[in-house]
């Protein structure tokens, strides 16, 4: 049985569980991009983002993460898993003693040396937005990234972040205002 772009995630998952390596590869290739970009913006670290994607798919593969198609789409489930993994890592990082601060001003959420984001985002404006986004409070960041960059609805974001729609709406509004303010401040500081 061939795999086409229209083959459903549920079908691919069923075949993956039956040992079909091609189905697993297709499932991964279909969802890794958005998931990685979300994790990258959310964590600000390419290594963390790659680990997050790997762990999410490992959980799916091993059955440790129980995806229920009746409770939502697979991409949203994966976004939720990635978000929780990043939150867990951030919590662990907060418990550890902080490393010496680098000299740069924007070290609040450092990007790895080999961060593909830093290389790819040559456009200065996009890089400014990313930096401003990385300074947002995590709960605002979730809403802004998922809504503005992944075109998810309030309902979908509410499911992913396990909050109600009203909270999504308010977090998004406040996140956008904070982001705009940070960008304006940066524009004023720039000669």
């Amino acid at each position, binding site marked *: 049985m061939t795999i086409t772009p229209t083959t459903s995630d549920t079908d691919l998952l069923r075949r*993956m569980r039956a*040992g079909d*390596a091609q189905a*697993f*590869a297709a499932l*991964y*290739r279909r969802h*890794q*991009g958005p*998931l*990685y*970009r979300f994790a*990258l*913006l959310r964590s600000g670290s*390419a290594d963390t*983002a*790659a680990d997050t*994607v*790997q762990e999410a*798919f*490992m959980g799916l*593969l*091993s059955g440790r993460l129980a995806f229920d198609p009746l409770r939502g789409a697979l991409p949203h489930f994966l976004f939720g898993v990635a978000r929780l993994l990043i939150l867990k890592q951030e919590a662990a990082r907060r418990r550890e003693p902080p490393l010496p601060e680098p000299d740069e001003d924007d070290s609040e959420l450092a990007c790895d040396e080999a961060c*593909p*984001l830093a290389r*790819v*985002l*040559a*456009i200065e*404006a*996009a*890089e*400014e*937005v*990313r930096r401003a*986004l990385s300074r947002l409070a995590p709960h605002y960041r979730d809403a802004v990234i998922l*809504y*503005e*960059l992944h075109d998810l609805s309030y309902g979908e974001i509410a499911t992913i972040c396990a909050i109600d729609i009203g909270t999504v709406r308010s977090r*998004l509004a406040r996140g*956008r*205002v904070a*982001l*705009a303010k940070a*960008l304006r401040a940066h524009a004023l500081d720039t000669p």
Partner: protein
Amino acid sequence: MHHDDTPDLDHQLAQLRSGMAGIDTPHCVEKELMQAFAAQFAQRQPWYRRLGLLEWSAAGIGGLVTVAVLGLLLVSPHLANRLHESNALVRIDNGGAFIALDSFERIDAEPAPRLVETEVPRTMLAALGLPVTPENAGDAVRAEMLVGAGGEPLALRLSSLSFN
């Protein structure tokens, strides 16, 4: 969603979206996941799906040998019985010999067997499997022949049979 309060923000976010469009997970992640997949399903597969051609060939040969050995073990008792039965046709004890000229069932079933005394040349007994030496080849052996009602010979008892 319309954002009158942040008119530039939508444009800036669009730039960020565009800049990130081509970013994918490093290839090593897919490689590691596929290795994990292969390892996991190698363990999950039943034993007969994990065997390769070589293992299957060895198992087939082993199976054939086992069947052959079992077959021999099952068949050999019958062979032994048959040999035993054929040996029983000529029984030698205490210098005498009993030679069944027909099956034991036929002899048992004979309603009126008769015993006839006679003498048979030793050379004739050689054809029945009794030892004959050049020294006694010309002798005759005293015998009692069991014959059926129709006169057909059923068995032969040889007395004072000497193998020397």
